[in-house]
C-alpha cells in the first residue's frame, strides 16, 4: 500500500500544571507546528482544521473548534471538533487523513488540547469520570482509576507475576520522561517508590496512574505525494484504524482484552500492508500502568499474559528490542486528554526524523501510535514511516 498522508510539521507545548490558558496553549502548539515545516506552510492555503478536546472543566464545550481557527490565525477555515474522550487526538488524526485523501483541500491542521488544572478539585473529579459509564460504574463508586483497578485485579489474578511488570512500566516511563523537556514529570522513580505508593484503586497505586495535565499538540498534514514540497523528511501515515466496544466494562466478555484496540490494530496493519514485526517503536496509551500491558497484548506483540515477560525482560525499554513510550508515555509525559493522541504523533515525528535528542531511539523506520478512549470504549491505531 502506498502512503496515505504525510506529517510535514508538528508542535507541542510543555505538559504539566501550567499558567497558560487554553487559548495560549493552542497558539503555542500551532505556531510551533507551522514553524517546524522546513520550507514553510502558507496559512492562507490551509484548507481545514480539526480540534481534539473533551472540553474538560466546561470552559468551552460547544463550538470550541472555532477557537482553534482564531488562535491558529485561520479565519474562515472549516473547523470540526472531534471527541472520543482520551482517544480524541487519534480520532482527529484519522479524520484529517481522510480529509487529505478525499479532496485536495491544502494542508490540514490537527490540534489536540486540554486544560485540566484550572478547576476546583470536585469539578476535576467530575470531569475525570464523564467518559465512562455513569449509570452502573460511577453509581457503584468507580472513577477511571477504579475501572482500571478492576481490570488490573483480574489481570493479576490470571498472571500473578504482573505486579512486577506494572512497576517496571512506571519506572521505565519515568526514566524516558526524565529525558523529555516537555514532559509533566521529568524525574525518575524507584521501584520501591512505585510499590509503596498510596493505593488509589487497589491494586493500582499513585505511581500506576497518569497525572492530570495541561497541554496542547498540533500537526500539519498534506497528501503524501505533495509532502516533499514542504520538507525533505516527511513522516508518512501509512495506515489508520479505529474501533469501539461497549461503554461499560461489565458488558464485555473479557475484562483484560480491549476489542476496540484489536479491531483498530487489524485495520491499521491491513491498511499499511506491513507486518507487526516491522514496527521500530510504539507509543501506547498507558493512562494506567496496566493499560500498557493490555496494549502490548491487544496490538499483537504478546499473547495474553505475555506482556509481563516482555516488560520485565527490558524489551520495551528505550534501548530494548521494541521500545515502548520513549517520550515517557501518558504516565510521565502527562495526559491532557484531547492532546494525547496528537502528542503521540508528535513524538513519532521527532523520532522518525532522528530529532528526539537524548531520548532518541536508534534508527527507527516505522512506528505505531495507540490511543484509547476511556476504558476501551473507543480506540485508534496509526502506523507511520519515514523516507
Amino acid at each position, binding site marked *: 500500500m502506498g502512503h496515505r498522508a504525510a506529517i510535514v510539521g508538528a508542535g507541542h507545548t510543555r505538559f504539566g500544571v501550567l499558567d497558560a490558558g487554553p487559548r495560549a496553549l493552542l497558539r503555542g502548539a500551532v505556531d510551533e507546528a507551522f514553524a517546524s515545516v522546513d520550507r514553510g506552510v502558507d496559512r492562507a492555503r490551509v484548507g481545514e482544521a480539526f480540534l481534539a478536546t473533551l472540553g474538560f472543566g466546561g470552559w468551552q464545550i460547544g463550538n470550541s473548534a472555532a477557537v482553534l481557527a482564531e488562535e491558529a490565525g485561520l479565519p474562515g477555515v472549516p473547523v470540526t471538533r472531534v471527541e472520543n474522550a482520551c482517544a480524541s487526538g487519534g480520532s482527529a488524526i484519522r479524520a484529517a487523513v481522510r480529509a487529505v485523501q478525499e479532496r485536495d483541500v491544502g494542508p490540514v491542521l490537527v490540534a489536540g488540547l486540554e486544560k485540566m488544572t484550572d478547576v476546583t478539585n*470536585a*469539578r476535576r*473529579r*467530575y470531569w*475525570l*469520570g464523564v467518559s465512562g459509564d*455513569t*449509570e*452502573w*460504574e*460511577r*453509581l*457503584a*463508586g*468507580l*472513577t477511571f*482509576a*477504579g475501572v482500571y*483497578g*478492576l*481490570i*488490573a*485485579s*483480574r489481570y493479576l*489474578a490470571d498472571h500473578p507475576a504482573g505486579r512486577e511488570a506494572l512497576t517496571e512500566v512506571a519506572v521505565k516511563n519515568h526514566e524516558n520522561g526524565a529525558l523529555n523537556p516537555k514532559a509533566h514529570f521529568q524525574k525518575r522513580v524507584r521501584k520501591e517508590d512505585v510499590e509503596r505508593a*498510596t*493505593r*488509589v*484503586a*487497589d*491494586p*493500582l497505586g499513585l505511581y500506576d496512574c497518569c497525572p492530570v495535565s495541561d497541554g496542547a499538540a498540533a500537526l500539519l498534514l498534506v497528501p503524501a505525494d505533495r509532502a516533499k514540497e514542504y520538507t525533505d523528511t516527511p513522516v508518512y501515515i501509512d495506515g489508520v484504524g479505529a474501533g469501539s466496544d*461497549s461503554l*461499560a*466494562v*461489565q*458488558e464485555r*466478555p473479557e*475484562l483484560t482484552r480491549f476489542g476496540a484496540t484489536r479491531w483498530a490494530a487489524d485495520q491499521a496493519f491491513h491498511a499499511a500492508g506491513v507486518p507487526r514485526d516491522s514496527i521500530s517503536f510504539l507509543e501506547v496509551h498507558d493512562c494506567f500502568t496496566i493499560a500498557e500491558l493490555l496494549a502490548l497484548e491487544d496490538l499483537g506483540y504478546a499473547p495474553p499474559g505475555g506482556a509481563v515477560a516482555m516488560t520485565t525482560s527490558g524489551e520495551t525499554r528505550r534501548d530494548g528490542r521494541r521500545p515502548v513510550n520513549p517520550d515517557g508515555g501518558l504516565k510521565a509525559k502527562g495526559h491532557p486528554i484531547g492532546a494525547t493522541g496528537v502528542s503521540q504523533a508528535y513524538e513519532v515525528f521527532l523520532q522518525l526524523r532522528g530529532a528526539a535528542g537524548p531520548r532518541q531511539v536508534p534508527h527507527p523506520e516505522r512506528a505505531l501510535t495507540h490511543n484509547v478512549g476511556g476504558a476501551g470504549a473507543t480506540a485508534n491505531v496509526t502506523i507511520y514511516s519515514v523516507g
Partner: protein
Amino acid sequence: MALEFDRAAAYRVPPAAGNRRPAASDEDGFTLAATALERLDPGVPPGPPPDRLVLVGDLPPSAEVDLPRFFGSAVPVERVPGGRGAVRRALATARSTSRGTVDLVAVDLGNGPGEPDAAVAVRFSAGQEPDGSVLDGSIADEESLSAAPLLRVGADLGPRHPSRWLGDFRSDGASPPPGPDVSTPLPAEGPVSQGAYVPKARYLENLPSRWRFVGQRCGACGTVGFPPRGRCRSCGATSPLEPFPLPLEGGTVVAMTTIGPGGQPTEFDDQVAAGGPYGVVLVELMPGVRVTLQVAADPRSIRIGDRVATRLRRLYPMEGEWRYGRKAVPFA
C-alpha cells in the same frame, strides 16, 4: 391470642459499638424492610407481589412510594401510625383482609442499649387455614423470634429517632442529632460536582434491574443480557426481549478493587470520610452476565473467586433523596 399467617421472615442488623449505628451506615428503614421482604419471598423469579402492604414502624415517608417500586407493582400501601399498640393495630389491619394476600412489614431502628435494627415481614392470606404456625406473642421460628421483639403483641412503635431516616449522610459529616426533627433535608443538589450524576428519570427507569437484577432474554437468539436494552447485544433483534430475573445471591467475584481516599466520585466523599476505603466488585451473576457493585462490608472480607450475596442498600444522596441499589456482601 393466636394469629395465623403463611410465613414470616426477619432481618436484623447487629447494633454497633456503643449502640450507635455507624455514621457510614447505608441501611435505613426502607432497606431493612426491603431485605425482610426479599427473605419472605427469596425465589428467582420472586412470586407475585402481595395485594396489599401494611407498614408500621421506623420507615421513612419515601418508603410508601419505594416499596411498591420494589415490587414493580402498584400495590396499595397502608401506613399504621406509631405509638402505643401500633403493632397490634397493624396486625389487626393485616388480618382483616377479605381477599388475596397482605404483607405486613414492621421496622424497628434499635433505640435502647443493645437493641438491633430489625425488620419483620409477615404474609397473610385471606381465607386460608392456619398452616400450623402460630403467632402468640412472638413469631414462631427462632430467628424471627430473636430479631423481632417489635412484633410482640402490644409493642409500641413510635417515631423515635426519625432524623435517621435521612440525616446520616448529611454533607457536613456530623452525626444526626437525636430527637424529633423528622425533616432534616439532604442538600438540594447533592455535592456540586455530580461526578456520578444519574437523572432521576433514568434511575427510576432502571429500578427493576438496579433493585432486583431484572435482565433480559432475547426471544430470537436466547442471549441473556444485563442491564436490559432496547436491542439484543448478540443478534441485534429489537423484539421480543423478555424480562429475565437474575439471581440475587451466589454470583462470583471476577474482579475487585478498593477505592482509596480521593479515588471516589464526589458523591461518595461523605461515605469515605465516615467509613474509609470501600470495595467495588465485578460480579458474574450467570455465565457472561456481569454487574458492578459496591461492597457493603469490609473490603478485606471478599476476594476474587468468592461467591457473594447482594442486598438493597443506600447508594448516595442526590437532589434531596436517597438513591438505592444493590451491594455485595459475603455469601453466608
